[in-house]
């Protein structure tokens, strides 16, 4: 092991843990600043998210959204691309899901609608990622900037459609009509005996999310395309010499990424809201960046960090109920801190750790 390298368990386990601890420590200081007891807040947060069935249900429901958006960011990461347009892709994906549900819900049961809704969400999400991808691949405009722009263009487009085009006739609400049974995913609660998950909206989309994790794992580590994606991400120049077409990789990767983001709408629109409404993505797309970063762009890591963020959302809601001084905005603060420490300040503690570990190893080397 050469200088500056760390054992794998430190790189993939200890460093993220330290970063997360730092983020939570600062969050605790914020809680102190607004005059509440951080220890008490943590207790409420954990109890609220994991302490009882309904809380677990909501945690898993939120986690489902985060798995999709996290996977979306992760797939792009592997190709060295930064897809920050998950927000817009999920929003437009919602249109695809809603169109499928609106067209079919009167005629067929949900399990016939589901494949069409999945296809709709994925295709619409992928389409929204296609233009930035094409612009990056062919015209050299940076995908980060174009996907940001497309988030806003998507928001404007969806706003227009919801207000003026597909809203429920005779209603001022910017939303579509509520889907019939045929356009609703069953809640997990209705499939399991007992009433474990209570009123929470965790639904079959969770299973779909886990399948998506398997899909991404197989795609990235077990297929030729995945190998090409990782090669391109590691070294675009070498990839070209290996006969990999950058245009193809950029466009395909971004479309897979956008498609995964679009599937988030299955959970939110088909599984929970049962209608398309304004701003239903509400930040899940952006937080996907944090999920992917913390999960080290690996499906297992993403599931774990998605659950963590799901806990934050659900526990945070509980917290704002129990401690009115801590509003839901606290969750946004914690997210910001997690993104900062686990993402941007990723390497802050690394030099110290490298020093520590090389120091610990020195006597052994001398003895050998």
């Amino acid at each position, binding site marked *: 092991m050469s*200088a*500056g390298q760390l054992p794998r368990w430190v790189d993939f386990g200890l460093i993220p843990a330290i970063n997360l601890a730092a983020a939570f420590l600062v969050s605790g200081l*914020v809680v102190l*600043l*607004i*005059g509440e007891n951080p220890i008490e807040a943590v207790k409420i947060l954990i109890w609220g998210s994991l302490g009882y069935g309904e809380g677990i249900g909501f945690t898993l429901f939120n986690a489902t959204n985060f798995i999709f958006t996290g996977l979306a960011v992760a797939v792009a990461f592997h190709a060295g691309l*930064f897809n*920050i347009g998950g927000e817009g892709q999920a929003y437009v994906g919602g249109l695809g899901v809603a169109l499928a549900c609106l067209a079919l819900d009167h005629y067929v049961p949900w399990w016939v609608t589901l494949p069409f809704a999945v296809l709709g969400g994925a295709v619409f999400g992928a389409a929204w990622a296609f*233009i930035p991808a094409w*612009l990056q691949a062919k*015209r*050299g*405009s*940076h995908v*980060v*900037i*174009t996907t*940001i*722009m*497309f988030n*806003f*263009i998507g928001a*404007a*487009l969806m*706003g*227009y459609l919801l*207000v*003026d085009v597909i809203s429920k006739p005779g209603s001022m609400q910017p939303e579509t009509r509520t889907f019939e049974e045929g356009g609703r995913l069953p809640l997990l609660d209705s499939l399991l005996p007992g009433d474990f998950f209570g009123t929470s909206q965790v639904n079959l989309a969770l299973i779909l999310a886990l399948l998506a994790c398997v899909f991404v794992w197989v795609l990235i580590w077990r297929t030729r395309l995945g190998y090409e994606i990782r090669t391109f991400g590691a070294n675009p120049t070498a990839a070209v010499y290996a006969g990999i077409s950058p245009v193809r990789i950029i466009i395909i990767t971004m479309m897979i990424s956008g498609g995964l983001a679009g599937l988030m709408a299955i959970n939110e629109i088909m599984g929970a809201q049962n209608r398309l409404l304004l701003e239903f993505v509400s930040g899940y797309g*952006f937080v996907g*960046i944090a999920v992917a*970063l913390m999960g080290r762009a690996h499906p297992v890591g993403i599931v774990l960090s998605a659950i963590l963020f799901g806990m934050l959302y659900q526990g945070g809601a509980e917290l704002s109920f129990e401690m009115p*001084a*801590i*509003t839901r*905005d*606290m*969750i*946004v*603060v*914690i*997210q*910001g*801190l997690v*993104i*900062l420490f686990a*993402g*941007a*300040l*990723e*390497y*802050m503690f690394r030099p110290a750790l490298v020093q520590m570990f090389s120091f610990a190893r020195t006597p052994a080397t001398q003895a050998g």
Partner: protein
Amino acid sequence: MFDTLILILDSTVRLSAPLLLACLAGLYSERSGVVDIGLEGKMLGAAFGAGAVAYLTANAWLGLLAGTGVAVGLALVHGFASITNRGNQIVSGVAINFLALGLTALLGQTWFRQGGRTPSLSGGGRFGNIELPFAAEMAHVPVIGPIYSELISGHNILVYIAFAMVPLTWWILFRTRFGLRLRAVGENPAAVDTAGISVTWLRYRAVIACGILCGIAGSYLSIAQSSGFIKDMTAGRGYIALAALIFAKWKPGNAMWACLLFGFLDALAIRLQGQEIPGIGQVPVQFFQALPYILTVILLAGFIGKAIPPKASGVPYLKERT
């Protein structure tokens, strides 16, 4: 018709000023090689700081100082992450946007208990409009009169500062030693380092300049344009400024025109809301909201000239290989 035009242009100037300040802020940062998508967060933080302090002290200047302080603080966090720790600059920017959004709403509620807003400002807590000399006398002169008294006169001091920053920024970037080095560090940091100039310190200064301008931009929103801070009051202006920066191809003069254009679209959208345009019919307001972004994407695609960012932007500088 002429009066309507003057009115639209007048609100164009008001709406462009914060964009322009934020856009120039981004210009300093990105010209030095530090990509900044955290303009939005810095503006929001500044708007809150300014609104809170201006309320507590009833002094707009102290508010401006506080707002600028908050923005510089956030800018230093960005600098610490992306310059010192060589972290991902995009991620750092996203983090700052989240932090500002959450903290301003949370602290606003804790301190003022008005649903995240700061209490309404009055009198000295706000920057009032300045009547330029002879504005009233000139008002009756045809054509020039309204232009002078409506369009040029009667804005608050921050608007004039915003537009004065354009030539100043140009002069700093293209006529001073600091500006030359700043541009060099954004193109080729290794060369600057070889010349014995600290890349780190230069970039920190650029990031601080960015913070100061974002601070003025944010303060403008809460204590000049409105009378107090409202939750999420930047509403995407930081991103529009970013789009304007690209649209302006990272040049100060262009930045002014880009911001005026985007401000004009905004003013037009407000004006045309719910109105029929002869021959076209009613244009959805969302179209105007999306237009700045669509124009920027088209520009980025290379269909209207080519926008080439500073060469080293987004790349952390590593002095030596370890």
